């Protein structure tokens, strides 16, 4: 009996896996060794492409057809997963191992009521009758803190919020009382405040059930709050593992150190010196943006038809050379403001820039468009895939006639150097570059126009931590060199506190708070601002390994 208690719930011993591709074998996981005991939360941390999700799939035995195991063993509660037949797997999945995915909206079947999706699992894996399963599902949902579970079970996934959906997914995973649950970035797709609640739920449920958890994440700050032990994975290999407190504060491996050093820390300011008080460069004056305004016929037929406000009566000022951070959850209207200021969305109200008033997006002329540039969130989507990098960068130069025809090529080389990319990238296509490199090109394109204001719409959100830090530093560096002001839209509070001079907070399309970055902790902040700040832990300083 003692032997059973001691046995790890998950025992991955020297496991390797490879994908067969047209170019030959690609080793996705190399010699992975990992043990999780009952009641333990083991965090697996790595950047995109490191193989962290692949390992989860390998444990679940749900791999692409071109994947092959190349050595080692995976045991869950002593059962060999590698040798398991399809029938064994059916028995093991759900009862012994369960999984929680990143995006709750794609993890649930949109055509089934959420109650059915839980009861289905209970009936299949625990052999319950329908009535039993319904009662058990309700109890399971109650444990996840849902107030009216019976009502929620009758709803379809699209009728629930992201947080509610993730609770349903988590309730389903816990419902069969498995020995091990794999969490694959369960909070990444959620808003800051919801993510915090889900994380608290995870901690409570785990304490109640004593389940072993493998928690996959790229977020080191988050991991420090929940994990007992941590493994850091890099290019398919575990480079460091140990107790969370040790790994996260006194890392031994260079890669872990680099990852931790890249975490934005509000007290390590990297902003350009605050510019002197000057009249604003750009003023957004009671700007509202409406989406989906109904036509006259719709209005006649349905008097209740109304437009939806993406932003309502927002007023902002940006001074020359300043970096203004705009934060808020998704749907708070922060990107809407960027769209209005760049002429991508029709707006009401006025935008004042360099002494001129614009009251409609049609009024924006070429001079305004040159001086106000935008960089988007997704580096993969913001560069035309059919053009070379050189042509992409040359376009603003030619469009605005900034340099004589013969010097365009030289200027493109200069721009590439400016964002620390080799000059020969000019002849490459966007798909040959990594995400961080593409984002550098997008930033270079914005600065190529020699703008006075650059609007950055979540430019670091799609990047890995270490790349994120480099891009943020690059941006500040370019800002210092060119003297341009920057409107930096983000949901990363630690990052914005590092970069910005002032911060504006948006919620439900309205501006709720604006303050100097030094006053972030001051009393009298809006409750929503405080909630946002409290939801994000400030990373601990690094020590040398003991």
């Amino acid at each position, binding site marked *: 009996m003692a032997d059973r208690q001691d046995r790890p719930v998950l025992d991955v011993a020297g496991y390797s896996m490879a994908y067969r591709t047209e170019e030959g074998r690609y080793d996705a996981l190399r010699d992975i060794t990992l043990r999780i005991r009952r009641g333990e939360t083991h965090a697996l941390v790595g950047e995109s492409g490191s193989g962290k999700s692949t390992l989860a799939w390998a444990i679940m035995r749900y791999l692409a057809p071109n994947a092959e195991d190349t050595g080692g063993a995976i045991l869950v509660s002593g059962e060999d997963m590698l040798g398991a037949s399809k029938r064994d797997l059916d028995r093991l999945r759900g009862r012994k191992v369960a999984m929680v995915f990143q995006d709750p909206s794609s993890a649930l079947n949109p055509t089934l009521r959420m109650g059915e999706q839980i009861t289905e699992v209970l009936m299949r894996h625990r052999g319950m009758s329908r009535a039993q399963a319904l009662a058990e599902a309700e109890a399971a949902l109650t444990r996840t803190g849902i107030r009216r579970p019976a009502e929620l079970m009758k709803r379809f996934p699209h009728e629930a919020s992201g947080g509610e959906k993730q609770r349903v997914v988590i309730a389903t995973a816990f419902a069969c009382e498995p020995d091990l649950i794999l969490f694959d970035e369960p909070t990444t797709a959620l808003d800051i405040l919801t993510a915090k609640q889900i994380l608290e739920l995870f901690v409570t449920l785990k304490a109640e059930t004593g389940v072993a958890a493998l928690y996959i994440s790229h977020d080191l700050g988050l991991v420090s709050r929940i994990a007992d032990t941590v493994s850091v994975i890099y290019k398919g290999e575990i480079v460091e593992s140990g107790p969370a407190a040790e790994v996260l504060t006194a890392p031994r491996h260079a890669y872990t150190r680099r990852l931790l050093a890249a975490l934005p820390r509000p007290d390590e300011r990297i902003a350009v010196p605050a510019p002197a008080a000057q009249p604003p460069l750009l003023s957004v004056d009671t700007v509202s943006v409406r989406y989906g305004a109904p036509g006259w016929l719709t209005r006649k037929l349905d008097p209740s038809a109304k437009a939806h406000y993406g932003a309502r009566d927002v007023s902002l000022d940006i001074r020359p050379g300043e970096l203004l951070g705009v934060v808020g959850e998704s749907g708070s209207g922060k990107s809407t403001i960027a769209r209005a200021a760049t*002429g*991508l969305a029709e707006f009401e109200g006025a935008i004042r820039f360099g002494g001129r008033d614009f009251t409609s997006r049609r009024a924006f002329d070429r001079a305004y*468009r040159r001086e106000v*540039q935008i960089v988007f*969130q997704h580096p993969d*989507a*913001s560069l035309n*895939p059919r053009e070379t990098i050189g042509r992409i960068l040359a376009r603003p130069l030619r*469009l605005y006639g900034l340099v004589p025809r013969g010097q365009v090529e030289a200027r493109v080389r200069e721009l590439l150097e400016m964002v620390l990319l080799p000059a020969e990238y000019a002849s490459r296509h966007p*798909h040959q570059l990594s995400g961080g490199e593409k984002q550098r090109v997008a930033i270079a394109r914005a600065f190529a126009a020699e703008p006075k204001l650059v609007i950055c719409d979540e430019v670091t959100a799609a990047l890995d931590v270490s790349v994120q830090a480099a891009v943020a530093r690059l941006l500040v560096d370019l800002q210092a060199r060119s003297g341009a002001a920057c409107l930096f839209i983000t949901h990363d509070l630690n990052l914005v506190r590092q970069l910005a001079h002032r911060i504006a907070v948006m919620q439900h399309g309205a501006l709720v708070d604006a303050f100097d970055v030094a006053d972030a902790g001051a009393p009298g902040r809006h409750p929503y601002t405080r909630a946002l700040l409290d939801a994000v832990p400030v990373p601990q300083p690094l020590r040398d390994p003991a």
Partner: protein
Amino acid sequence: MRRLLSSPTGIAGCLLLLLVFVAALFGPWIAPYDPQEFHVTARLQGPGPEFLLGTDQYGRDLLSRLLNGAPATVLFGLGATALGVGAGSVIGVIAGVAGGRVDSVIMRVLDGLLAMPELLFTLLIVSFLGGGTGQAMLAVAVTFTPGMARIARGATLSVRTREYVLAAIARGESRAWIVGREVLPNALGPIIVEATIRVSFAIMIGATLGFLGLGAQPPSTEWGLMVSEARQYMFRNPWCVIVPGLAIAITAMGFNLFGDALRDAFDPRRTR
């Protein structure tokens, strides 16, 4: 081109098309007999050493007729598709880029046209224009236009909201530049693929029209007409239906496979 030939689909498609185009370009010269010559003593024969693919009810050599009919059949398919795709994509891209009311009006009209079955619509136009190859081609092109416009609009819409297009709009680019350089090259993939697949449809509709006596007229060697004429003798010599039928199928399949391979080759993300 090398990319196109690196997949089995591409090789198969290219080989079939090569066969078809050799037949279409040199057919009349390599045909062993005069396609209209009657061999009274050898009617409705199966394939043999003398007549490689057999003969029809008048004793005409099927291989020679097939080779002679190839240019007409292939040109018909290409011509009808080019016209239809050209008109359709222009309309679709205009609707997709303009959006709003223009889009609604154009698309509702096209939806109305789409509601009519393709063949019926073609027949209607042919009966209006009168029979003949040229008229049939025009009719097929008109029939293709609404469907192509819908596909072109869909492709345009999916590209129009991409961030690089937004970036171009924010930069203050002209509408012509946005359509020509940012939207169209990226929306072209689905349009080209659909076009190559449509060539096979066009050939089949052309054959159907020939079969119904509304397209090419006897003694033309158009393949659909050949099937039509031989229909009565199908049970005495199935070869006179199988041979042109198979030729139509091979051509259609060639264009189809080629279209698939072309889509893969066109996608810059597929290469490493």
